[in-house]
């Protein structure tokens, strides 16, 4: 017989958040369930809106003010099952003994904070999506991923190729940005649109890290995954500044002359990555001062379609730079220089 859960009603998320921190397990679980269920309703509406032709749903807040993430971290105990394991840390709870749990919790916080502070985006879907983190997923699992729903899975790595994947702030930012992209342009994960999808995750992943560490464009190493690579892939997975040099197996091209036909989406992403690096470093200061804003405006631009190629994206970045900063602004010129450096036309 199902247990009646009295919280499946119209309690404001704020109260639910407090209940989620309650000491007794039944109350806590019921509140957590409800927060998730509540979100399902909003998600359903968003889905409906998109089917009706809207790109994304209008903000539906249910009294939510925003500005605070809703995080829950689970221990998968090395299983490959994708249902949540043991709750280790819910929103607002103190740090625990397991470093992976705390790193995932903090990484989610850095990512949420970056998107909220910079773009007033309330979580991945812009509507306060609760974010679930699943640590210790699989045996020696050399990967971390966003599952296109609401969960981020973290492997512990095999110690050779990758190590504990929760350690990379940029990696958490990268994965959660896949969720943001899914709710915006929903770029198809193959060919140039797939490489753009990957690049956008690196572009915002590195900014989440730079923002957390307060690094300007000269202080950042512009490396992706430096904290999670094992000896076989040292010093990093990718370099946005000099694609193709991050590790002995890095085959990323630095411009269109090296474009790999049929290449992995993680290979050709080096081209738009370097364009972003060039724009940000040409302008100086912090990457998010202008370059990040232009890229975000482009990602959320309704003219960016799911099948976009590099040139489509480049054109839109220039259009957005001109709209925000002016047709002949230094920002617009920097965007032109950035794409020129990687040989992608902006016209």
């Amino acid at each position, binding site marked *: 017989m199902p247990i009646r859960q009295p919280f499946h009603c119209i309690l404001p998320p704020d109260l639910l958040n407090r209940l989620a921190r309650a000491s007794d397990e039944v109350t806590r679980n019921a509140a957590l369930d409800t927060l998730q269920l509540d979100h399902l309703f909003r998600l359903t509406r968003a889905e409906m809106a998109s089917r009706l032709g809207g790109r994304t749903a209008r903000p539906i807040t249910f009294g939510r003010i925003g500005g605070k993430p809703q995080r829950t971290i689970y221990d998968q105990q090395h299983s490959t099952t994708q249902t949540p394991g043991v709750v280790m840390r819910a929103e607002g709870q103190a740090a625990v003994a397991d470093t992976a749990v705390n790193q995932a919790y903090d990484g989610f916080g850095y990512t949420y904070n970056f998107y909220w502070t910079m773009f007033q985006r309330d979580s991945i879907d812009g509507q306060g999506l609760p974010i679930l983190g699943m640590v210790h997923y699989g045996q020696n699992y050399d*990967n971390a*991923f966003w*599952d296109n729903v609401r969960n981020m899975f973290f492997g512990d790595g095999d110690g050779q190729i990758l190590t504990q994947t929760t350690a990379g702030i940029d990696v958490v930012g990268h994965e959660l940005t*896949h969720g943001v992209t899914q709710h915006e342009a929903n770029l198809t*994960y193959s060919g140039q649109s797939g490489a753009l999808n990957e690049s956008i*995750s690196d572009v915002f992943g590195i900014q989440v890290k730079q923002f957390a560490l307060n690094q300007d464009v000269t202080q950042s190493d512009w490396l992706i*995954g430096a904290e999670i690579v094992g000896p076989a892939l040292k010093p990093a*997975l990718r370099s946005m500044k000099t694609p193709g040099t991050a590790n002995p*197996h890095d085959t990323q091209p630095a411009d269109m002359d090296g474009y790999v036909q049929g290449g992995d989406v993680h290979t050709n992403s080096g081209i738009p990555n370097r364009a972003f690096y060039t724009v940000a470093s040409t302008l100086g200061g912090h990457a998010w001062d202008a370059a990040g804003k232009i890229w975000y405006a482009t990602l959320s631009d309704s003219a960016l379609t799911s099948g976009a190629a590099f040139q489509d994206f480049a054109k839109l970045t220039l259009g957005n730079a001109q709209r925000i900063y002016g047709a002949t602004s230094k920002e617009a010129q920097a965007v032109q220089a950035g794409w020129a450096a990687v040989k992608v036309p902006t016209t």
Partner: protein
Amino acid sequence: MRVRVVRRGGLAGIALTGEVDTGELPAEQAKAVEDRLHGLPLDKPTAPPGHPDGFQYALEFPGPRGESRSITLDESEVDDNLRPVIQKAMERGTLG
């Protein structure tokens, strides 16, 4: 039966290639792997990654008449019968 496994994708996006002879596995596991591989439809289309940064496994192995067969599976399609052979191949895999 020799099985060659190439793992592509993942957050790193760098291929990892390894080979295993099913004879290296306990007899029961080996039979389960071989039955499973020979049961896979030859014209099975490659499933797109179930989510960004997912792994895809390209498997090469001989068919019942010794002919070469290949098939690509998304990581979500790897079941408990296939996992031992893939895991072993990847443990000894080389990057690039």
